[in-house]
């Protein structure tokens, strides 16, 4: 990694590229799309310096396929995209979930649906990030709200992906992606990097999808002599297809359980002023920044309001949310969509708690004043 001064002005998308390099990513395959293109641009400059590979593929489907192939070949790999490209990648994201291929997908959200508003921020892919590909599948979605955090969470995305062999999506809006901020990047040597488990032991009788105690099967390193088989069909521990109900139930159950049993290790959130809060704001991305300002201002006028900022959107920090819901009387969910995250919050709140939203899908960020006005209205 090239030496950089610690304190610097850095754009969100470029911070993402630098985080990926720091995490050990050595292949980027993509198809540039606004507002994510700077991730690709920076990767095209950084990867050759670390003997990595940058490939611009013919489209998003092919780029996701190249990421999977490369990862199966033993290289930490990623792609970056936005709405229309994210839709195209879903097929192979599902393949990655089922075949347990570690990969990181950056989705910089713009106005949708369809081509929508390429240059405008939005947060409309909350549910697509969780359920964009078909069938029950494990997936992790992390969501940064600052340039510094894009760097950190991109590293974490690789670590989680390698540890659990699941696709990990880094989801942020155009406003954060294009923000240039003063950041202090950590010393690369101080960054904790996790690598995947490699298969060891006798090659004879090796089962590529036999999980260890932690529910994660080690991966066969190409060239180590293990025979393996990879397919998008539901498969047994051997890697070969099955439709036997009891077997399907076991293998799919294990896939889903990789997330469920590790929720405590995966879920992350940040709380501000929550200890005595009667009103709770739950927000992510640029909206979390507006909310932080609004909460601070509301506190100055004596309103007992706090902020919960999920850093993992999926799995959503469910236990903490339930605990806070038992303490507050109102939960406010501002988001730049017609109401997506609020569905998850409503599910986790008892009937005694009122849940309301602030929703915008006009291409403008929700500004702090809007959140503050709503907090004041609720507190009356």
């Amino acid at each position, binding site marked *: 990694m090239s030496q950089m001064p610690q*304190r610097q*002005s850095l754009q969100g998308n470029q911070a993402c590229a630098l985080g990926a390099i720091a995490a050990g990513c050595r292949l980027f395959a993509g198809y540039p799309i606004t*507002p994510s293109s700077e991730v690709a641009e920076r990767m095209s400059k950084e990867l050759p310096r670390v003997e990595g590979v940058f490939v611009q593929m013919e489209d998003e489907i092919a780029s996701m396929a190249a990421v999977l192939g490369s990862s199966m070949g033993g290289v930490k790999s990623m792609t970056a995209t936005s709405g229309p490209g994210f839709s195209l990648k879903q097929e192979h994201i599902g393949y990655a979930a089922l075949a347990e291929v570690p990969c990181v997908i950056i989705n910089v959200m713009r106005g949708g649906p369809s081509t929508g508003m*390429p*240059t405008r921020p939005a947060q409309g892919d909350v549910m697509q990030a969780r359920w964009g590909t078909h069938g029950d599948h494990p997936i992790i979605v992390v969501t940064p709200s*600052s340039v*510094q955090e894009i760097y950190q969470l991109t590293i974490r995305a690789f670590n989680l992906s390698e540890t659990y062999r699941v696709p990990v999506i880094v989801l942020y809006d*155009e*406003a954060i992606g*294009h*923000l*240039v*901020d*003063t950041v202090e990047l950590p010393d690369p040597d101080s960054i904790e990097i996790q690598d995947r488990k490699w298969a060891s032991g006798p090659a004879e009788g090796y089962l590529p999808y036999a999980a260890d105690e932690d529910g994660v099967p080690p991966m066969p390193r190409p060239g180590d002599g293990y025979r393996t088989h990879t397919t998008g069909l539901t498969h047994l521990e051997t890697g070969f297809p099955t439709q036997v109900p009891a077997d399907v139930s076991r293998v799919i159950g294990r896939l889903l359980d990789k997330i469920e049993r590790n929720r405590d290790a995966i879920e992350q*959130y*940040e*709380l*501000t*002023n*929550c*200890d005595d809060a009667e009103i709770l704001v739950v927000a992510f991305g*640029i909206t979390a*920044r*507006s909310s*932080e*300002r609004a*909460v*601070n201002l509301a*506190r*100055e006028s004596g309103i007992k309001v706090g902020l919960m900022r999920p850093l993992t959107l999926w799995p959503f920090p469910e236990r903490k949310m339930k605990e806070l819901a038992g303490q507050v009387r109102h939960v406010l969910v501002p988001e730049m969509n017609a109401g997506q995250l609020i569905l998850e919050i409503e599910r986790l709140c008892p009937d005694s708690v009122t849940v309301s939203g602030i929703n915008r899908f006009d291409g403008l*960020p929700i*500004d*702090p*004043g809007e959140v503050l006005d709503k907090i004041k209205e609720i507190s009356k």
Partner: protein
Amino acid sequence: MNKKATKKFRGFEIRLSGTGGQGLGLSGKMLAAALTSDGLHVAQSQSYEPTSRGGMSRSDLVVTEGIADYPLATALDYLLILDQRAMSISDGMIKKDAIVLVDEELVPDPPTGDFKVHALPLSKTAISLGNLRVTNVVSLGALIALANICSLATLEAAIERITPKKYARMNLDAVRAGYELVSS
């Protein structure tokens, strides 16, 4: 992680506005580099539109001591306007007692309100230096003299760091000429 302290918003917000092609992104970057070298924290955002030339353009700086709670501009302390058509994008955002700097030719009808407007010959000064395109840098010099947000020496050093060598002299002349429009 549990952050307890309610931190009061300190600092100021600057907007450089005009039309695409006037170099406002670059001058925003120069000013940010100067303020950052003074130890401040600067969040920069730009209008981001498919039009690269001729459309309305803005470059915003939110300047704080630590990381800003909200990094986008909401209430401007300092505003530069280099094109009449760019005035409306700051409607309702100019703070009381803000300093508004406009080009006296390009903005014949400056905003009015509870703030101080300075109309200066920014583009004319750039032309007298031999290049209309340094209006952005002339404006920066005038702005820091009016706003007193960083020293001329700090800004000059930042400009020198950012500018390719062959344009350094021109930009340094421009920033000084702008500064002297106010301070001489």
